[in-house]
């Protein structure tokens, strides 16, 4: 009797320890996040000023303006390339492909492979193919081409999921009314799946903004005094700007690296909020 009681006590102690450890790890994860965010924001936000945000770049302002404009160019252009390809690919996979088709298997394998390739390998490929072989040199264009491939899997998988979550009754209704398959896809399926597709696009924007390794040898680290729309010029994005400032090691550039980091974090906040908002909307509509 005593032994079973002891045993029970022991089990309760173990259970309690286990439970506390699980709670501790949950809280630790949130704690790490808050620490990182506060550490960057508290040191960075006070350093942000108008000259830094919108001024001309020089060794004194270390302005982010021209890098911000490059980042926006990079986002717009790579989305222009990737979104149509990615969404069409998702339409093929979700609406047209037959189950067990060999081609589909190969395509899925390719998408999974793309998703797993580290960004430095994309950077190497971009440097070999776009910069050297196609002769785009280190330029925004080379960066855009490299990034477009990198974000493809993100766009494809979120679009495919969104398209698959459109109830079959919608399709049947449309086909029953005599609409063609194509018309059904464009008029019924895509509009219904739009929030999920948008969530994927926003996720891709987040990846572009934060990308460094794939861009450092493709679009390069050069910075122009004022924003330029010359796609053949080598220009740095925000994240690379931060890397260059951080690795310079001077107190002033270090301060401004904190400031650039704060801007990046604000972008991440917006991206995250928008993604969950859109993704939540599909959840609710069902």
């Amino acid at each position: 009797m005593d032994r079973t009681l002891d045993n029970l006590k022991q089990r309760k102690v173990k259970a309690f320890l286990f439970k506390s450890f699980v709670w501790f790890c949950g809280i630790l994860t949130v704690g790490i996040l808050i620490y990182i965010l506060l550490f960057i924001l508290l040191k960075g936000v006070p350093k942000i000023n108008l000259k830094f945000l919108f001024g001309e770049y020089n060794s004194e302002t270390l302005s982010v303006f021209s890098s911000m404009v490059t980042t926006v160019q990079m986002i717009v252009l790579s989305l222009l390339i990737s979104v149509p390809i990615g969404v069409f690919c998702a339409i093929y996979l979700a609406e047209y492909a037959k189950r067990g088709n060999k081609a589909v298997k190969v395509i899925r394998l390719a998408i999974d492979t793309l998703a797993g390739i580290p960004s430095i390998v994309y950077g190497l490929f971009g440097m070999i193919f776009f910069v050297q072989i196609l002769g785009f040199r280190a330029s925004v264009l080379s960066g855009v081409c490299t990034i477009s491939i990198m974000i493809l899997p993100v766009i494809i998988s979120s679009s495919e999921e969104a398209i698959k979550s459109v109830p079959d009754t919608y399709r049947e209704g449309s086909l029953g009314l005599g609409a063609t398959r194509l018309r059904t896809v464009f008029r019924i399926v895509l509009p219904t799946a739009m929030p999920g597709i948008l969530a994927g696009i926003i996720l891709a924007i987040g990846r572009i903004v934060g990308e460094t390794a794939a861009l450092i040898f493709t679009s390069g680290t050069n910075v122009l005094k004022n924003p330029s729309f010359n796609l053949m010029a080598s220009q740095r994005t925000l994240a690379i700007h931060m890397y260059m400032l951080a690795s310079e090691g001077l107190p002033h550039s270090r301060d401004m690296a904190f400031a650039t980091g704060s801007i990046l974090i604000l972008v991440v906040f917006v991206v995250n909020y928008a993604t969950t908002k859109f993704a939540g909307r599909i959840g609710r509509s069902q």
Partner: protein
Amino acid sequence: MQNIKQSNFSEITMQAIFFLSALISVLAVLAICLFLFMRGIPAITEIGAMDFIFNEKWGPTNTPASYGILSMIVGSIYVTAGAIVIGVPIGLMCAIFLSEFCPDNIYKIVKPAVNLLAGIPSIIYGFFGMEVIVPFVRENMGGNGYSILSASIILGIMILPTIISISESSIRAVPESYAEGSYGIGATKEETVFKVMVPAAKSGILTSIILGIGRAIGETMAVVMVAGNAVMPLDKIELLKPIRTLTTNIVTEMSYASGLHESALISTGVVLFVFIIILNASLSSINSKAQRN
């Protein structure tokens, strides 16, 4: 009649366009393999495959130059292992917390926090590591702080969201009846979770770990900022000493490399790429095994 023909035509054209778009991913993978190998393999044969992979001496600017990346392969393995040792227990426990123990109102805080952690760019992690973890290691454990340990800690944090989200959903996918059976024979909640739910979710958890390994071994910018990047002879590699990994080898030298040196750096990328392909292959074999069960 003409209308129908027309729509038939556009149906077929668009279907072809959809299919071609889908093929672009395949083309991209083929192009990446082709050009990486095209530039990387000749350098490996010129250096000698054995010499390239199993020599620990890397000195592209020495005379005679030497191009051995063994020390970086070992470095990549060390920091990745370190990341797993730090990230997997915390991540798995956090996943258990989210799926089994977390009250709803706290879930609403922790879950978005995990998502946010996934969205933070590697440059921010690297900078944080450089400003916080490196000085911490320097002051409390010795060395100059730029070390395997610092890189492992940063990578351990970076793989947390991967481990947490995938493990959480795989634990949630375990049928309720498993837990009921366990409660029925008198097990406590904690015993049920630890001895029934987690083992039942093991293929999902394994998937999360492999994806975490992939992320850690391929990470570049965060590592380059905290690892010190010195090429260490194998017998000098220590937890608190600097290290160079495959990825950081590429990023630290590419800007001034040319000729065989540049090709050797691309070959370093090829070796990394082969690692990633092996990880992917093991991932799909786990998935197909899980599907068969």
